[in-house]
C-alpha cells in the first residue's frame, strides 16, 4: 500500500481501515439481499440461513463497516489537522488486525453456529441476541479495548499537535462514542431495563455521537475539497454540535414511549426529537452555502474553474447533506410523535427510515472519505468522476431511494391494516403482510436492492481503479 505519495503512516493505516470497510459494505448488501428475497420467497435458505441470521449479518456488517470507515477517516485527517504524525501508530496497526480478526470470528460463528442454549455461555461466545449489538460478550470486550486504543491515539495526537476545532470536536465525540458502548454490555431479566440502556448505545450513537462525527468530517471535507474558510467552517461545526447534542441527547426519549418507561417521555421525546431535523437542515445549508460562496469568490476574481478538487468525493458529500436531512430528518420526523408512533412503532416505517437515514447520513460521507483517501494516496491534484463513479453513485442512490419508497408504502399498509384496523395480533400481523400492496412493495424493495447491489460493483471497481486512471490532474 505504501507509495511515494503516502508519507504518513497514519494515512496508510487509514487505507487499511477503508479497504476492510468497503469489503464489509459489500457483505452488508449481500446479506440484505438474502433477507429481501426471504420476504418475497420465504422458503429461500429456510433452515440454513434464516431471516434472523441474514438480518443480523446485514445490520452488524453495516455498523462495523461504518465504524471501520470512521476510524479510517480519523486516521486520515489527523496528520492534516494536527500537523504531526499520529501518536501510537504501531498500536493502531495492531488494533486494526485484532479488530478485523475478531470480526471474522464473530461472523463465522453467526453464520455457522447461529443460536445456542439458554445460558451464559451462549451470551459470551455465540450471540448476545440484542438487536444491532448481537456480538457475543467476549467480542464486546475486544471492541472496548480497540476503541480505547483508538481514542488514546486520537487524544495523544490531538494534545501533542495543533488542536483545531475539528480535532477538539472529534476528541470529545469519540470518547462519548466509545464510552456509550459500555451501556450495552450487561444482562438483566428485566426487559424494560434492558431496552432502556440498549437505546443508550443505539440512539446516542446514531442520533448523537455519529451525527457530530459527520459534522466534523463534513467540516474537514469542505476545507480539503473546496478550500472553505476554516473559521467559518468551524463556527458552523460548533453550532451544529450545540444543535445536535441539544436535540439528540434528550431526543432519546422517543424510544421510551412504549417500553415500560413513564409517560413523561412522551413529552420529552416528542419535543426534542421534533427538533432533531433542525441541525440536519443547518448541515445541509452549510455544505451548499459554503460551496456557492467559495465558487462565487473565485468567479469574482475571474476564475471560472470549479473550486472542487475531488468531484466524486464532493458528490458523495453533497448527497450526504441531502440524505441526512431527508433520511434522518424527514423520515425520522414522520413517525417520531407518540400519537403517530403508537401505530408505526415496530413497522416497516422504521425500516424505511433506517435505510435512507443510514445511507444518507453515514454511508455517503464515508464513501466520500474513501475517495479523498484515493486522491491522497495517488497524489491527484484534481480528481474527476469516471464513468464508474457516476454509475456507482446513481445506482446506489437510486436503489436506496427506491427501497425507501417501497418500505414506506409497506409500512403504510402495515400501520393501517395490522395496527389500526386489526389490533396488532398474530392474525392482524399476517393480514397486513399478505395485503396486495405490502406484497408488491416487498417485490419492489427486492428489485431496488438488486439495483443497489449492482451499484456496489461499480463502486468497488471505481475505488480499485480510479486512482491510476489518467483522466485526473496530477
Amino acid at each position, binding site marked *: 500500500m505504501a507509495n511515494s505519495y503516502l508519507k504518513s503512516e497514519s494515512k496508510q493505516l487509514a487505507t487499511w481501515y477503508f479497504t476492510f470497510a468497503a469489503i464489509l459494505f459489500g457483505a452488508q448488501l449481500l446479506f440484505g439481499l438474502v433477507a429481501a428475497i426471504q420476504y418475497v420467497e420465504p422458503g429461500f435458505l429456510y433452515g440454513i440461513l434464516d431471516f*434472523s441470521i441474514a438480518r443480523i449479518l446485514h445490520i452488524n456488517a453495516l455498523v462495523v463497516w461504518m465504524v471501520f470507515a470512521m476510524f479510517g477517516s480519523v486516521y486520515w485527517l489527523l496528520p492534516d489537522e494536527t500537523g504531526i504524525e499520529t501518536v501510537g501508530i504501531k498500536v493502531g496497526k495492531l488494533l486494526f488486525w485484532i479488530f478485523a480478526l475478531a470480526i471474522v470470528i464473530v461472523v463465522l460463528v453467526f453464520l455457522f453456529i447461529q443460536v445456542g442454549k439458554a445460558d451464559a455461555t451462549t451470551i459470551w461466545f*455465540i450471540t448476545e441476541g440484542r438487536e444491532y449489538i*448481537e456480538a457475543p460478550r467476549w467480542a464486546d470486550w475486544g471492541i472496548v479495548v480497540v476503541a480505547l486504543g483508538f481514542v488514546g491515539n486520537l487524544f495523544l495526537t490531538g494534545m501533542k499537535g495543533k488542536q483545531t476545532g475539528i480535532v477538539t470536536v472529534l476528541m470529545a465525540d469519540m470518547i462519548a462514542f466509545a464510552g456509550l458502548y459500555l451501556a450495552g454490555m450487561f444482562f438483566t431479566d428485566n426487559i424494560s431495563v434492558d431496552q432502556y440502556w440498549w437505546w443508550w448505545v443505539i440512539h446516542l450513537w446514531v442520533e448523537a455521537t455519529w451525527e457530530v462525527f459527520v459534522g466534523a468530517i463534513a467540516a474537514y471535507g469542505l476545507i480539503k475539497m473546496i478550500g472553505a474558510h476554516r473559521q467559518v467552517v468551524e463556527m458552523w461545526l460548533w*453550532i451544529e454540535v450545540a444543535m445536535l447534542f441539544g436535540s439528540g441527547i434528550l431526543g432519546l426519549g422517543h424510544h421510551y414511549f*412504549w417500553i*415500560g418507561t413513564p409517560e413523561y417521555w412522551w413529552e420529552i421525546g416528542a419535543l426534542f426529537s421534533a427538533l432533531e431535523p433542525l441541525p440536519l437542515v443547518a448541515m445541509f445549508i452549510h455544505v451548499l452555502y459554503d460551496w456557492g460562496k467559495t465558487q462565487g469568490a473565485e468567479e469574482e476574481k475571474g476564475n471560472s474553474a470549479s473550486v472542487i478538487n475531488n468531484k466524486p468525493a464532493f458528490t458523495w458529500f453533497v448527497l450526504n447533506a441531502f440524505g441526512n436531512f431527508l433520511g434522518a430528518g424527514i423520515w425520522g420526523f414522520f413517525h417520531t410523535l407518540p400519537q403517530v408512533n403508537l401505530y408505526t412503532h415496530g413497522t416497516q416505517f422504521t425500516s424505511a427510515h433506517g435505510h435512507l437515514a443510514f445511507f444518507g447520513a453515514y454511508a455517503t460521507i464515508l464513501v466520500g472519505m474513501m475517495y479523498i483517501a484515493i486522491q491522497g494516496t495517488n497524489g491527484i491534484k484534481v480528481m474527476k468522476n469516471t464513468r464508474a463513479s457516476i454509475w456507482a453513485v446513481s445506482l446506489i442512490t437510486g436503489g436506496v431511494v427506491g427501497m425507501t419508497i417501497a418500505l414506506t408504502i409497506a409500512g403504510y399498509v402495515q400501520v393501517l391494516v395490522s395496527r*389500526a384496523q386489526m389490533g*396488532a395480533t398474530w392474525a392482524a400481523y399476517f393480514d397486513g403482510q399478505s395485503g396486495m400492496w405490502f406484497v408488491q412493495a416487498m417485490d419492489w424493495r427486492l428489485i431496488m436492492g438488486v439495483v443497489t447491489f449492482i451499484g456496489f460493483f461499480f463502486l468497488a471497481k471505481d475505488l480499485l481503479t480510479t486512482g491510476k486512471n489518467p483522466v485526473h490532474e496530477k
Partner: protein
Amino acid sequence: MANKSVWSDNRFWRRSATWVTGFASLLLIWLTFDTSTQIAMGNDKDLQNGVTKRVPGPTVINYKITYEMSAKRGHEVPVIGGNDGKGGSLFKEKEKFFGRDDYTEKEAGALLHLGKLASQAKNCMDCHTLLGNGAYYAPDLTKAWLDPAWGPNGAMQALTGKNTREEAIAEFLQHPDQYPTHARMMPDLGITAKEAKGLVAFLKHMSSIDTNGFPRNFGHMQGAVNGK
C-alpha cells in the same frame, strides 16, 4: 477585533455547545434515575399487597392478566388478577400456569431468567419485535401471551392440540416447523421443553408490563376480518 459581534465568534459557539451538551446530559442522567426507580422490577409482596408496578415481579405468572381500557389513563393497561372496576388491578384472580398458581418468587424468577436468556440465545429480536423493538419479519410479542389465537377458542390451541395457552405456546416453540400458519414459517431453533417453559413465562411477564397503551386495541378487533 473590538467591534466583532459575538454571533460570529467561534469561542461563543464552542461554549454554547459545551453548555447545551452538559445541560442535556445532566437532564438525561436525572431522568434516568427517576425512570430506573419506576421500571425496577417489583416483587411478590407488591402483588400480594396490591401495589401496581410498571414492571411487576416474576410471580405475576400466578395471576390472570388482561389488557383493558383505563378511563383514567385514556388507553389500555395490563390488569392483573381482575379489574377493580376503575381500570386498575385487583391482584386477586389467579390463573394456573402449567398446572400451578403457587410459584414462589424464586421459582418464578428462575423461569423468567431462563426465558429471558433463551430470548437472547435464539435471537428472537431478529425476526420479532419485543416491546415493539426488533425486526419486522414476524409478529410483535409485547402482548403475545394475550393473543386470542392462543386462547380457548383460538386457532393455535386447535392446531397444537393443547388445552391451555402456555402448553400451546410451548409446543409451538419446540416444533414451530410442524405448525406452519403462513408461507413464512418460524424455523426450528432447538428450543427444549425447559427453555420453552421459560420463554412462555417471559412472554406472560412481558404482557404484564405497563407499556402506556402499546399496542393499541390488542386482541380487541378479532371480529374484523379483511375490513368487514
